[in-house]
């Protein structure tokens, strides 16, 4: 009970800080528009993809862009740990009787809540780019995004628990997050890739999350067989598994994290 209250207040603080920062709220709406209009429209006009099936590049890329915005929001959610460390606030949390794993869970819940709001904003913008989602589709996609964002925040915590400066965190971001995104199949399909790239894309856990989003979005239309790579079952299995493992690793590593 006491631990739950502690987890709740750590989550609550993340939400409070988000709501209090106008630049983050503006960014939450501006970022998806930017992605959809500039990247999505730009690339879909440059290439036309298999118009015969009624598929345009936008409908291929939309789940990928949603995944991308959740990826960045989630990872930046974990940055708050590095931030708290720099401002000394982490000490206040670390000397409390709340166990470290509970702190990690509170942080993960806070970060993925914000990421999920971002994901919902993205999905609501689907009609703006000519895609129509039903309510069940919307909810199912949100469910997958929750799993994906939890995994990514946990990954962020793993990195943040070992980083003491903002610069260090950004370095790691560039070396881990960008490849994770590029290899996820968000921008280009896995099919027809050279062997080594194909293998890397199979290793990237984000690939399965993006694939699950596509399954839900295309439903039983012929696009599903064309644009997805794995079965929905495998996608969910890998995503849930990776999320669980990363959460545990985050909890364990956080245990040894230093205050300053």
């Amino acid at each position, binding site marked *: 009970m006491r631990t739950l209250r502690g987890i709740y207040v750590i989550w609550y*603080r993340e939400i409070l800080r988000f709501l209090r920062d106008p630049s983050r709220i503006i960014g939450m709406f501006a970022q998806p528009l930017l992605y959809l209009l500039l990247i999505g429209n730009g690339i879909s006009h440059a290439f036309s993809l298999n118009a015969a099936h009624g598929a345009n590049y936008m409908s291929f890329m939309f789940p990928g862009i949603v995944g991308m915005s959740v990826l960045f929001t989630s990872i930046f959610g974990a940055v708050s740990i590095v931030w708290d460390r720099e401002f000394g606030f982490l000490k206040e949390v670390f000397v409390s009787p709340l166990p470290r794993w509970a702190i990690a869970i509170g942080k993960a819940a806070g970060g993925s809540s914000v990421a999920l709001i971002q994901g919902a904003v993205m999905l609501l913008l689907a009609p703006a780019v000519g895609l129509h989602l039903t309510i069940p589709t919307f909810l199912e996609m949100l469910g997958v995004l929750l799993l994906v964002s939890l995994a990514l925040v946990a990954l962020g915590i793993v990195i943040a628990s070992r980083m003491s400066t903002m610069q260090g965190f950004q370095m790691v971001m560039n070396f881990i997050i960008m490849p994770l995104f590029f290899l996820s199949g968000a921008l280009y399909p896995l099919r027809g890739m050279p062997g080594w790239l194909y293998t890397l894309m199979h290793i990237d856990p984000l690939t399965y999350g993006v694939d699950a989003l596509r399954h839900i979005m295309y439903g039983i239309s012929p696009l599903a067989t064309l644009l997805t790579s794995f079965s929905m079952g495998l996608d969910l299995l890998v995503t849930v598994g990776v999320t669980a493992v990363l959460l545990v690793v985050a909890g364990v590593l956080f245990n040894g994290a230093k205050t300053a």
Partner: protein
Amino acid sequence: MSEAAPTPKGLPLPDADEDVIVVRDLVKTYDRIEAVRGISFSVRAKEVFGFLGPNGAGKTTTIKILATLLGPTSGHCEVAGMDVVTHQREVRDRIGLVFQDPTLDQQLTAEENLVFHGMLYGLSAAEVRRRAGPLMEIAGLAERRKSIVKTYSGGMMRRLEIVRGLLHAPEVLFLDEPTIGLDPQSRAQMWEVILSMGKEQGCSIFMTTHYMEEAEFTQRIAIIDHGGIQAIGSPAELKRQHGTDMIIVEADATPEDPGWAKALGATVRGASPRFEITLPDAETALPRVIEAFGGHVSRVEVRRPTLETVFLQITGREIREEGPADQMAQMHRMWRRGR
């Protein structure tokens, strides 16, 4: 006192029932550097206890060990009846901490910071508000409780941290250099707040300082240097044991009968018109000193020993006041925060 046995002899044996902190033979070594060299002491319930010593003497290391933030290399520490190594969580539940550097969330209001803290310690938001009321009143922050902490001055932030440290009714409040970086006026005000809040809550206070005048606020003080306790006692006891009174007499003649000095156990230095007389009990001896000089005295001054002179006598050096190195460290901290 030898380096090997820095704890003064004749220390009363710790009484487990009354002592809120018991430390025995505590050693902490970082990379072969002995930061704390086998210290033993105890702090009684409701006592205001201080560690006085220069930077790098081992004060912060000791606090960190007692607060379970750092493991001891060897030795035994109990806080509120709990072992700091085996019962970390229980100890954390029973202590409050105020660090040297601010640890507030500056983007939240004072009240939000307090609610956050209280809930980490299992209190409800309503309970936090109820408890915080009187404490915020004492701290002079009641009217500003809904302000974002970023708008607070340094002194206000420190007072808020003390309120926060006491919110969960700890048995001991640890204060690591609570007034560092504050101007002298804020420092005095801070002490008023600390002492009256400590009394209100009935908890022990363990604090470190390198300001001599602040050591006077404690009931007992340990003088710590080179990782060892060099002396321990109330400020008055330490002055009695390690300092001597001095009477300065300005007179245009030397006493005719030199026997008076021997009778009082005094040493006389100097010559007309200024004499420095060191002796055990200046206030009682003063009439006889004046008498000895006859009608030739034009001015008399009694100097009681200060902790400054006590410290000098015990450690053989003056405590380092805030010098360029501290200012650099502070600037560095501000710079880091400002980024």
